[in-house]
């Protein structure tokens, strides 16, 4: 019962923090330079790892798809299977988890260290709102860059799937691409991008919130980082189900 109460309290705190962050998004001054810095750190900095994981995820999907569909003589549908799986599901979810591990943890550690070494207090005493200066650029950058990274993941995954299907499973390129065209439509792309957008905002809000409220020195920062990664990962999987359920029932 106490655990459940803590979960709801944590959720309430996060919603209030999100509301405060959103309110500051629309207030000048506009910190374009900070936003670009964060977009580079979260987006550009994660591109390589997202591309590599995407490539291998697509390669595995092609192997598994071929294994399953060969039993029905439907190997040609592997292209569509790979594309839909990547665009609707694996792209946003895996990208969300990779960004959580790479950037979410870094955000919590950085803000947590700033909190326990009084740098955030110092900023507040200099008449600078720390949510505006530190949180808003990170949340905006993650929200904007997550869909881009999901596209990179899916693109690289499709390339990996194509290579495996073509050169290992010996599926001709024609049916692979043709079934992708017939099975994948623009709604699937929007579905995946919406998920990535939601995951980007939720992961960054959880990570910044945990860092912003860290206490208790280095140990407190470590605990806050662990909580941020666990909460973000669980939130991605829960929200993935909710969005999918709402979209297709």
């Amino acid at each position, binding site marked *: 019962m106490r655990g459940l109460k803590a979960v709801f309290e944590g959720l309430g705190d996060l919603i209030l923090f999100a509301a405060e962050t959103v309110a500051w998004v629309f207030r000048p*001054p506009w910190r374009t330079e900070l936003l670009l810095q964060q977009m580079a750190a979260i987006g550009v900095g994660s591109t390589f790892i997202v591309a590599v994981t995407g490539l291998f995820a697509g390669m595995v999907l092609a192997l598994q798809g071929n294994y399953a569909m060969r039993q029905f003589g439907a190997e040609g549908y592997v292209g569509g299977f790979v594309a839909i799986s990547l665009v609707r599901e694996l792209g946003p979810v895996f990208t969300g988890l990779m960004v959580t591990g790479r950037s979410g943890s870094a955000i919590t550690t*950085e803000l947590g*260290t700033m909190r326990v070494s*009084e740098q955030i207090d110092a900023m507040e*005493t*200099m*008449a600078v709102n720390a949510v505006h200066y530190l949180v808003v650029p990170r949340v905006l950058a993650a929200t904007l860059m997550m869909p881009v990274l999901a596209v990179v993941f899916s693109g690289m995954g499709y390339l990996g799937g194509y290579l495996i299907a073509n050169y290992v499973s010996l599926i001709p390129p024609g049916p692979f691409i043709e079934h992708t065209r017939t099975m994948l439509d623009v709604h699937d792309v929007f579905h995946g991008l919406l998920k990535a957008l939601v995951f980007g905002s939720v992961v960054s809000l959880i990570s910044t919130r945990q860092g912003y409220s860290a206490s208790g020195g280095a140990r407190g920062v470590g605990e806050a980082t662990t909580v941020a990664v666990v909460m973000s990962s669980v939130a991605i999987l829960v929200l993935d189900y909710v969005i999918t359920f709402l979209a297709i029932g």
Partner: protein
Amino acid sequence: MATIVVRDLWKSFGEKEVLRGIELSVEKGRTFVVLGASGSGKTVLLKHVIGLLKPDRGSVEVEGQEMSSLEGLALTEARQLFGMVFQGAALFDSMTVFDNVAFPLRERKRRMPFDELRGRVVESLRVVDLGEDVLDLWPAQLSGGMKKRVALARALVADPKVVLYDEPTTGLDPITTDSVDQMINQAKERRGVTSMVISHDIASAFRVADRLAVLYDGRIAAQGTPEEVRRSDDPYVRRFLALWFEKQ
């Protein structure tokens, strides 16, 4: 004329009463030191003055503004009155010395030309006896005393009316402590700022204070000029000061 007026200030955290009816006032252009042992409520008092904490009862007025009732943007604007030097300096470790000192100016005067900005930063560093050679250093490359100096330069750069010092000499060697004391006095003399210092360093407190108060168990045990406090007959104050005077 008083710049800071604290009236009947009470604050508890859970069951623990940290401040119990604090009354004090700090005159314009003077240095007021709050002395006390660890856990006496000094930092909590300072955080009320700058509006980082809200009181349970009582009020804090700075330059006629009621800090305890301000929220949001109004509080942010009121903080432009202040500069604050933190115990650990609290320099932004992702910025160079130049960017640290320039930070308050960049935030308040966003269209200031770079040459003027640089001039103000250099001038502020000069007040604390630092040269242009430190501009490109990172906080991790500075000694403890230099960090405190840069922190004061950052606190002074935007011409605050009030500078707050949180344990400015804690953990410093006697020579650096002496130079930090001189720096506090120079900031008062050269810039005419009103200062509030919280400390448990008795020697340092008597060097910089125009007036001082001794905080004990959330109450002010003695308040007045350094000489008046030294002659206080409050048992705690006598015990607190005894060791240092014996050494003298």
